[in-house]
């Protein structure tokens, strides 16, 4: 009971803080927009070429948007002492970790999903593949937050954390990007993407089960 209350209180406070720093919170979205607009300028506006690249580009942009906010996922809380308060008494750190990751996803994952129909149109993705793109983002972006959170918690008190963080997260997200872009490409070629989406969902469920436990343990290690 207390655990649920503290997780929702944390979520509310995180949202309040995000709105108070609106510019910073919108940065991932600006970033995504920039990538989607600039790449056609760089590679040329040919519809066939862009359509082939669209799934990968949207997904890489989603990934980078998520990475951009990871540096600040736990560090401010470590520095101002609010992180150690998570562990005081017999409260559920697991739920708080989930609440924090959910707010990260709302700021970095959800805007990508909302923006994806426009991005798909700009990149000439066949319209019948749009549904699969959105589903792949819905299933896959939570895993980006979960795995990113794991990397961020492991590197929390390390110097030069952002370099290490990028190296750590890289092998974890390779399968994610392969399954997700595979699904969208198959849908674009009018093939059935459900096998890819199923594997993507399995991947996300696995990270949802294991990552918060690992994050809670890693955070505690950083408080020693």
């Amino acid at each position, binding site marked *: 009971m207390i655990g649920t209350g503290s997780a929702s209180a944390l979520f509310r406070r995180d949202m309040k803080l995000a709105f*108070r720093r609106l510019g910073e919170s919108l940065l991932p979205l600006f970033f995504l927009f920039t990538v989607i607009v600039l790449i056609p300028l760089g590679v040329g506006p040919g519809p066939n070429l862009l359509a082939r690249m669209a799934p990968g580009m949207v997904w890489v942009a989603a990934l980078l948007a998520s990475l951009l906010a990871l540096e600040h996922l736990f560090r401010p809380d470590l520095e101002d002492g*609010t992180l150690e308060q998570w562990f*005081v008494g017999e409260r559920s750190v697991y739920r708080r970790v989930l609440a924090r990751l959910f707010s990260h996803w709302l700021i970095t994952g959800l805007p990508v999903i909302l923006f994806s129909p426009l991005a798909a149109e700009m990149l000439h993705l066949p319209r019948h593949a749009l549904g699969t793109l959105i589903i792949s983002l819905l299933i896959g972006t939570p895993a980006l937050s979960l795995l990113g959170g794991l990397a961020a918690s492991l590197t929390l008190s390390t110097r030069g954390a952002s370099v290490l963080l990028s190296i750590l997260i890289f092998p974890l997200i390779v399968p994610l990007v392969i399954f997700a872009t595979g699904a969208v490409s198959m849908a674009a070629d009018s093939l059935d993407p459900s096998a890819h989406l199923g594997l993507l969902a399995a991947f996300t469920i696995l990270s949802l089960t294991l990552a918060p436990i690992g994050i809670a343990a890693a955070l505690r290690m950083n408080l020693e």
Partner: protein
Amino acid sequence: MNRLLEAHQLEFHRYGNPVFQPLDIALQAGRAIVLTGPNGVGKTTLLRLLAGILAPVNGTLHHHAPASFVGHLPAVKGDLTCRENLDYERRVGPPGLDLAEALAQVGLAGLGSRPSRALSAGQKRRLGLARLLVRKTPVWLLDEPYASLDDAGCAGVDALINQHLSDGGGVVLATHQRHPRVAPELLDNIVLEAGIVDGGVEETQ
């Protein structure tokens, strides 16, 4: 007597060396335990162990009642107002006093809508202490509660502690500047000594 917190043979190691010898601690309702000793002897470590922030290497720890911890860091979000910071604390714990009353008791009346980043170190400290009031937690774990406070602030902390003890709460506090002004029969002292530390780790830190 009613026990709020019990620790048996509590041990913690840093870089492979024990920070202090195995400790037994029992906090009873209405009593305070004062931890003293020179810098680096493990007072903060012990408090963080009792709070549950650190996991003991050996020994057992039982919380029989919810605890609040006030550490060196104020645990205050600078972008939020004093009131918003306290509102969060109140939602997290079993709710205690209302926000305005808690602010008044720590001497921050009228500053509720000020962003807490605009507070001085002492005021931030007071805001951190207000956490103890907005939550109803019988166990208070205080790490140097008098740090960066003026005389009135220190007297205020003593008043909070006395009130809490008479309400049946318990306090464990670490201090090296000032002893709490509490009736001596309610106080237990634990003196941590540098001599019991093996390996000279504390000297090198």
